[in-house]
C-alpha cells in the first residue's frame, strides 16, 4: 500500500515537489517560532532569585566622577530614608535591578577562569530581597576589615568551579590580576551559595552570578542605585514626596524613583514586542500556506476524478479514498519535515544562536512537526471528503 502511494506521489512529482518545497519553508518558519517560544517560556519559568513585587528603585546620576563627599551625602540620604515611617528598609544594590547596568568580570579558582556577572549589595539586602540561600550565610558587619572580600556565588558558578556536590564554603576565588599587576590583590572568599540572582529579569540569559558586599563605611566607592521597600498600603503621593525630599538634599543630582515592577514591565516589553511582531508575520505566512495548500489540493482532487472514479468502480470504499488522499498528503508533509529538519539542524550544529541548545532544538522540531501535520490534516479534510464523494459515473462522464 505504502509503495503504491509513493508511486502515486512520484507520478505527480512536479506538483508534489512544489508542495514539499512550500511545506519545508513553512516548517523552517514554524521551527523558529516554536523554538523561540519554548526558549522564552523556559527562561520565564526559571526562578528569578529575588523579590520585586512591592519594591521601589531609586537611581542617582550625579554627573561626574564620585567624590568622598558624594558618598557621605548618599549615606545621609539612606539615613533619612530609613527614618521615614512609610519605609521598611533601604539597601544598596549597586547594579540596578531590571536595568541594563552590568558589571562583568573574570574570576578563577586555581587557574580555571570563567566570565561572570557581579553585583555589590549592602548588609541585609540579600535577606530582605528574599534571595534563596542554599548553604553558608549572608553578609554582615563582621565581614569588614578582613584580608579577603566575602562573596556569595550562585549554584551555576559553584558547580562550574568546584564541581557538583562539593561544598565551596571558605574557598577562595581570585578576581583578575593581570589588569592591575601593581595593585594589592584581594581575594574573594565564598561565604555562601545562593540559588540564583537574575539581575536583569526573566529574559536575562546569563547563568553565572556572584554577589559581593558593599561596605557602606568606606568612602572610596559610590553606589548609583538603591532598592527601597515601602510599607504596605502606601499613598499615591509616596513617590513624589520621596523624590522631593531626596532632590532637596542633592539638588545637582538627577534622581529617579520608580517601582521595580515598572522596570520589569519595560524589560519584558522590550523582549516581547519584536517577538510578537515577528510572530504575527509568521502567523500570516502560515495562514497563507494553509489557504494555498487548500486551494492546490482541491484542484488536484478535481483533476484526479478519472483515477478516483476508477478506483471506486473497482470496489474501493469512500473511506478508502479518503484515507488514500490523507495519507498521501501526510507522506508529502513528512518529506518536507525531514528536509526542513536537515536545514534547521545546521543552525544548532554551527551554534549560530547561543539560545539554541539540543533540548530546545528537539522540542522545537517536534512541536513544529506536530503543528505542520495538523495544519496539513485540516487542509486535506475538505478536498479528501470531495474525493471520497466521487462516483464511478463521474469518471466516465468527466470532460
Amino acid at each position, binding site marked *: 500500500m505504502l509503495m503504491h502511494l509513493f508511486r502515486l506521489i512520484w507520478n505527480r512529482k512536479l*506538483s508534489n515537489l*512544489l*508542495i514539499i*518545497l*512550500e511545506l519545508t*519553508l*513553512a516548517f523552517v*518558519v514554524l521551527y523558529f517560532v516554536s523554538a523561540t517560544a519554548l526558549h522564552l517560556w523556559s527562561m520565564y519559568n526559571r526562578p528569578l532569585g529575588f523579590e520585586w513585587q512591592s519594591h521601589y528603585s531609586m537611581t542617582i546620576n550625579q*554627573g*561626574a566622577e564620585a567624590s568622598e563627599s558624594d558618598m557621605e551625602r548618599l549615606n545621609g540620604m539612606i539615613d533619612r530614608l530609613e527614618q521615614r515611617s512609610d519605609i521598611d528598609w533601604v539597601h544598596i544594590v549597586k547594579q540596578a535591578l531590571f536595568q541594563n547596568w552590568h558589571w562583568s568580570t573574570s574570576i578563577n579558582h586555581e587557574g580555571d577562569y570563567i566570565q561572570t556577572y557581579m553585583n555589590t549589595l549592602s548588609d541585609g539586602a540579600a535577606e530582605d530581597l528574599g534571595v534563596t540561600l542554599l548553604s553558608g550565610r549572608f553578609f554582615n558587619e563582621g565581614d569588614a576589615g578582613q584580608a579577603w572580600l566575602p562573596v556569595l556565588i550562585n549554584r551555576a558558578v559553584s558547580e562550574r568551579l568546584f564541581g557538583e556536590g562539593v561544598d565551596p564554603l571558605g574557598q577562595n576565588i581570585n578576581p583578575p590580576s593581570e*589588569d592591575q599587576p601593581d595593585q594589592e590583590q584581594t581575594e574573594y572568599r565564598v561565604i555562601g551559595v545562593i540559588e540564583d540572582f537574575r539581575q536583569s529579569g526573566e529574559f536575562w540569559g546569563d547563568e553565572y552570578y556572584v554577589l559581593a558586599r558593599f561596605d557602606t563605611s568606606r568612602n572610596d566607592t559610590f553606589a548609583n542605585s538603591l532598592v527601597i521597600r515601602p510599607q504596605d498600603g502606601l499613598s*499615591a*503621593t509616596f*513617590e*513624589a514626596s520621596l*523624590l*522631593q525630599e531626596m*532632590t*532637596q538634599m542633592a*539638588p*545637582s*543630582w*538627577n534622581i*529617579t*524613583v520608580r517601582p521595580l515592577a515598572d522596570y520589569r514591565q519595560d524589560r519584558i516589553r522590550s523582549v516581547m*514586542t519584536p517577538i510578537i511582531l515577528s510572530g504575527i*508575520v509568521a502567523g*500570516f*505566512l502560515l*495562514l*497563507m*500556506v494553509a*489557504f*494555498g495548500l*487548500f*486551494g*492546490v489540493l*482541491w*484542484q*488536484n482532487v*478535481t*483533476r484526479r476524478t*478519472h483515477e478516483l472514479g476508477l478506483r471506486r468502480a473497482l470496489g474501493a470504499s469512500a473511506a478508502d479514498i479518503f484515507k488514500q488522499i490523507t495519507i498521501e498528503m501526510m507522506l508529502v508533509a513528512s518529506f518536507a519535515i525531514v528536509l526542513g529538519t536537515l536545514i534547521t539542524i545546521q543552525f544548532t550544529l554551527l551554534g549560530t544562536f547561543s539560545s539554541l541548545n539540543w533540548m530546545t532544538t528537539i522540542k522545537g522540531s517536534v512541536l513544529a512537526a506536530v503543528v505542520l501535520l495538523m495544519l496539513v490534516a485540516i487542509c486535506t479534510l475538505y478536498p479528501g471528503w470531495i474525493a471520497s464523494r466521487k462516483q464511478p459515473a463521474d469518471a466516465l462522464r*468527466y*470532460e
Partner: protein
Amino acid sequence: MSLHTVKTTLRVLMRRKFFTAISLFCIATTLMVLIVVAAIVDNMLHPIGAERNFDTVLIVERVRMANKEETSVWSSPLGYKFIEEFILTLKTPERVGYYTDNSRQSLIDGLIQRFQVKYTDDQYAKIVELDFIDGRYFTLDELNSGQRVAIINEPTQIRFFGDQSAIGKTIEFSEQRYTVIGVVRAEAEFNKAAFSDIWAPITTFPSGNYRDEMMGSFRALIKAASRSDIPAIKAEFEQGLKSFDYRSVSDEYATATSFANTKLERMAREFMGTEDELGSGLATFLMLALLGVVLFMLLPAINLFNLSISRIMERASEIGVRKAFGAPRRALVNQFLLENIILTLIGGLMGLLLSLLALNLIESSGLIAYANFNISWRLVVWTLMITLLFALISGSYPAWRMARMHPVRALKGY
C-alpha cells in the same frame, strides 16, 4: 492591452471566486508586511518632520577612547570637551550644533510625570527644523546668559496646562523653574535628534561638571552646505582626531576614534554593532537587508506559484479549444501573464490599503511614541515594481508550461 482583455480577465477571476480570493489574500498580506517594514525604514531614513533636511547632516554619537596599549578601552556618547575640541572647531561645515538627552521628572498635581529633556545650544534649532505652533527657540544671548527658558512639545503642553497655551507660563523640573517660550509639534521617537518633550539651554544644566568631560552624554550634529561637502567634513574631523595630543587631557588616553555618520550609516552601524569600528559595514547591511526580503518573499512566491499552476491547469480545456482554433503560443502566454499581472496589481493595491491600516494601528498603539508615518511616492513606485516582479516570477513558468501543452492533452483535461 485592450479594454476587452481586461474585462475578460476580470470575468475569469470572478468565475473562480475562491481561488481568486486565496491568491489575493496571499499577495495582499505579503505586500502589506513588506510595505509596513519599508515605510518604517523609509520614515527613519527620510523623515518628513523636523529632520527633513538631514540628508546633508552628519551625526556624531559616540567616541571610543583607549590607552596606548589598548588594554583599557572606553566607549560612550560624546563629552562636552570632546565637542569643544573637535566639532566646534571644524571649518568645512555650514554649521554645527549639539544636544544631550536627559530623563527628568516633574510633579503635576502631586504625581510624578516623566519627560525627556534635551539641553542644546542655539545652533541646534537651525539644523533640526522644529515645527513651531507658537513662540520661538532660544537665542544666543539667552544661551550665553543662562536664561531658564524652555520649549515644549504639544503633548507636554497638554500634560502641564490642559488645553491652555503654555507661552509665558513656568514649568518646573530638576528643582528649577523654566519659562516656556515656544511650543512645537511632537516628533517621532526614532528621529533621535529631533525627539524630545522639553528643550532648554545647555547653560542651565544643573551642574557644570560636564564641561570637562571627554566622554559624556552629548551628540553632535554637523550640517553641510551640500551633499558634496560631506567627504571633506569627514576628512577634516578624522584629521583633527589624529593630530590631537590626548595627554593634555588625561594620562589615560592615547587615542580617540569617532565617526560622523549619515542616517543610513548610523542605521547600518547600529544593526551591525560596528559603532566603534572603522568600516560602517554598510555594504554588508544592505546585502543582509536584501537577503532578508528575498527569504521573506520566498514562501509567498512559491505559494503563489503553486496557486497559479492550479488556476491555469483548471482551465486546460479552454486552452485546448483556443489552441485547436489556432491561437499562437505567444498569445496564450501573454494572456496568462496579463491575467496574473492584473490579479497581482489588485492584490498590491489591497496590500497598500492594508498597510495604511496597519501603520495607523501602529501609530495609535503608542508602540513608537509620536510616530506619524508617511507613505512616500518613492515607496509606492517601489511597491509597484516589486508587485510586478512578483507577478512575473509566479506567473511566467505556469503560463509557458500551459502554452506548450499539446492541444489533445489539454482538451482531455489532464
